[in-house]
């Protein structure tokens, strides 16, 4: 019996040894896999166990910054919730950081820094991996300027539309506004209030959560004529902008019997400069056809059209210029109709290209990221995105755009003592153009004594309630652009 007791004892201790081996398996060898399981709430709990880093904007002319986000301790399991003191004003910049619905825009693109997991925040390389910990959340300083953002937001005054403003020479985005907007704080936390707010925002007909400035494309209408003009000048189709062109008015689209009318008078055989000043459809459509499909596609893509990979750091929707068209479609595309669409940011880049001697600086929304204590972690810098046109073409286009503001369709954008160049646009859309047209204005401004333009801006207003007559780039959008430019210039 003694022998059997010994064996039974060995068996029982073997059971306990098996438990030990199994514990080592779960706790050591499979631990990483289990820890990273998406259903494991511990990562989420740890994430919200500390205040999230903040997103800052520039205030004033020096390097003064102010935060546009905050965090509050709710005492729940997911302790810290995101707050947005400015609510809808900065939603198109920050996006939301929701415990229920994840993150978007900067909150998403810079999440590693804000939530403290970025390895650059750690005192030593691999520190976070070793300690499985996280650092206090770092801050993200944006390129946005508070005054410019507010001017754009107040200019739109709740009307549907968007504004994108940037510094042409550095690519810094000074304002990114989408209207109507929403308060991201409503969906920060968890619970029924959040889910009902989410449902309400998503069901709203005015699409408050759509970031119209970078995620929505509109037909650019006449504002696109700047691209067509650049293509014509660069391709040598037009040598002298002041020379008459051989365009009849009205212009019959090639290969069809469709007649293209003009909104304005005096377009018959108008020169390129005159066509830009009063926005002649006929001349620009004709020039687009003469440049040819390949030339127009190349020119449009040099401005950034058809680029689905542009990131600022959030992804920007692809602006479109068709690569396969008949000549009549090309004619329509060349005046920003047919399938041509653009984001407001893309049109700001068009204005910026003219302002920056044909070179487009890569647009960027993040200036730098810092540790919790303010030490810089990473700094973005000016880099070239694309060359849109030759410098000489840019000079000629600047003159034409100034003419638009001084003597043409864009007089509402004029600012005393400041050189302003602009271009209006009114785009039909919908079946047989029955939808309310969009009002566009793209412009740049250069204050006296400055070496180069300091701001380029694009404004689009989609106001379904307005009369066809009231909707015009010059009427609805230009005043907003002027206010934005004034705000940008007043800050140096």
């Amino acid at each position, binding site marked *: 019996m003694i022998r059997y007791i010994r064996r039974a*004892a060995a068996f029982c201790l073997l059971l306990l040894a098996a438990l030990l081996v199994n514990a080592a398996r779960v706790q050591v060898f499979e631990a990483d896999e289990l820890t990273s399981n998406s259903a494991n709430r511990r990562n989420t709990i740890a994430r919200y166990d500390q205040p999230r880093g903040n997103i800052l904007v520039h205030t004033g002319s020096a390097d003064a910054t102010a935060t546009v986000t905050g965090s509050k301790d709710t005492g729940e399991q997911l302790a810290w919730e995101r707050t947005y003191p400015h609510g809808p004003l900065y939603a198109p910049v920050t996006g939301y950081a929701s415990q229920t619905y994840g993150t978007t825009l900067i909150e998403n693109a810079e999440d590693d820094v804000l939530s403290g997991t970025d390895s650059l925040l750690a005192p030593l390389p691999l520190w976070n991996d070793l300690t499985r910990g996280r650092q206090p959340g770092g801050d993200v300083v944006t390129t946005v300027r508070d005054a410019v953002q507010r001017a754009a937001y107040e200019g739109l005054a709740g009307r549907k539309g968007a504004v994108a403003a940037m510094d042409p020479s550095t690519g810094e985005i000074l304002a990114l506004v989408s209207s109507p907007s929403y308060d991201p704080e409503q969906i920060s936390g968890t619970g029924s209030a959040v889910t009902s707010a989410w449902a309400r925002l998503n069901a709203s007909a005015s699409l408050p959560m759509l970031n119209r400035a970078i995620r929505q494309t509109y037909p650019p209408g006449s504002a696109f004529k700047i691209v067509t003009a650049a293509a014509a000048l660069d391709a040598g189709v037009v040598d002298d902008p002041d020379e008459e062109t051989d365009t009849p008015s009205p212009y019959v689209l090639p290969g069809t019997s469709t007649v293209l009318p003009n909104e304005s008078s005096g377009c018959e055989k108008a020169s390129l400069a005159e066509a830009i000043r009063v926005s002649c459809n006929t001349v620009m459509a004709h020039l687009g056809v003469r440049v040819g499909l390949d030339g127009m596609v190349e020119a449009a893509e040099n401005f950034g059209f058809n680029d689905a990979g542009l990131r600022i750091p959030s992804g920007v929707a692809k602006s479109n210029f068709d690569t396969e068209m008949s000549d009549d479609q090309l004619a329509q595309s060349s005046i920003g109709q047919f399938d041509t669409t653009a984001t407001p940011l893309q049109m700001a880049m068009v204005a910026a290209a003219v302002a920056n001697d044909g070179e487009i600086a890569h647009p960027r929304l993040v200036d730098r990221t810092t540790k919790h204590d303010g030490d810089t972690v990473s700094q973005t810098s000016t880099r070239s995105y694309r060359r849109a046109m030759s410098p000489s073409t840019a000079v000629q286009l600047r003159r034409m755009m100034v003419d638009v503001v001084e003597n043409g369709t864009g007089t509402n954008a004029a600012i005393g003592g400041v050189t302003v160049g602009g271009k209006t646009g009114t785009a039909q859309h919908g079946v047989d153009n029955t939808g309310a047209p969009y009002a566009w204005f793209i412009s740049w401004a250069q204050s006296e004594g400055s070496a180069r333009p300091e701001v380029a801006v694009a404004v689009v207003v989609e106001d379904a309630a307005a009369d066809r007559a009231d909707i015009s780039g010059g009427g609805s959008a230009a005043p907003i652009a002027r206010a934005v430019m004034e705000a940008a210039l007043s800050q140096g």
Partner: protein
Amino acid sequence: MTAPTVDSPPPPLRLPKRRGVELSLLVGAVLISVYGYAAVGLAHDDTVPPDVARYGGGLGLLALVAHLAVRFRAPYADPLLLPIAVLLNGLGLVLIYRLDLETPSDTAAPTQLIWSTLGVALFIVVVLLLRDHRVLQRYAYLSVATALVLMIVPIFFPAVNGARIWIRVGGFSFQPGEFAKILLAVFFAAYLAANRNALAYSGRTVWKLQLPTGRVLGPIVAIWLLSVGVLVLERDLGTSLLFFGLFVILLYVATGRIGWIAVGLLLAAVGAFVVGSFEPHVHSRVQDWLDPFATIDAGQGPSQLAQSLFAFAEGGMLGTGLGLGHSVLIGFAAKSDFILATAGEELGLAGLTAIFLLYALMVARGYRAGLALRDPFGQLLAVGLASILALQVFVIAGGVMGLIPLTGMAMPFLAQGGSSVVTNWIIVALLIRLSDQARRPRPGQPETGVIAPIVEDEQ
């Protein structure tokens, strides 16, 4: 550690009693528990809990009274058993208190402390009143009848979480199946001690397997049917596994027939397969074990087992520290069946190893008593009680760590559950009594001419 003792007869004449060792180990056990209690408070509220002295004093008092009972009534008892029980019980209280902090609406630690007190009281009663374990042999059939009644009664009560193992009287509920374990162990030991030879050497031989006679086989088949019945009627897979394992081990120890183990395992497999295929509750447990993350893939969120595995994984080598884990995510059974997950998360593999080693020591000490005893009943009872401990730990710890299908069972001393704590304290009391008998110097010299028990070779 104590010095190695010779564990087979003839015993040395004077064994040290080692009561002083027990006392100092008890002091250590209480201090560790108090430290854990303070650590939880510090981690959770940045202050030592105000009643830390009361907690330590209470636990210390329980340990001291138990120690005195052992000192006066079982002076030769194994000095490790009581301190291990106190330490595990103290740790269990700390873990339950720690989980109470997360669930303010449902506190369990005070209740558990009352049950622990009752457990220690019964421990003392057993140590004081049971002067010789052989008395129990007389009550073999009474105990099996009682056990049967205890196990059948819950069928008439409503199920809780899918298992009918509870009796509710007023606001007071307990699991009679817990007490049945001890009674069954007593019965098995007595029955097998009486029928050892019949089981091993009688009956016809079929091929190479010697079958016992029907008269002897009858009760065994009855027991097998009983455990399957428990499984079916009460959906208590854990208890049924425990009875099975206990019975097979004791049968083997009593007869030395490997054939019994084969038969037992075969019957267990058949029973488990049959029940598993038509009983949805058991079937789903097996499915969960095969794929703990199936519910996640199905979009229903993690199952309790998955949450338990997450907790263990979070602990890693050293744990998050007491009071700093999130094992409360496991849900309603976090303080009872899944208490080990909290230990795993907050004390890590290091703490878990310590806990398993404590259990292993306790089991080993129980077996050691069995080896040193001279009467078959005592030997079998010691083996049975030690095996109950080992099997309980294996079934529930293996379950919550995904080693075997999850079955509801309480971790001895650690888990919330009054019946379990009281039962395990009685088991320890019986082991104390058995080890006291085993280590007690026998009066007189070994007589010559009397056939001494077979002395095995020391391996």
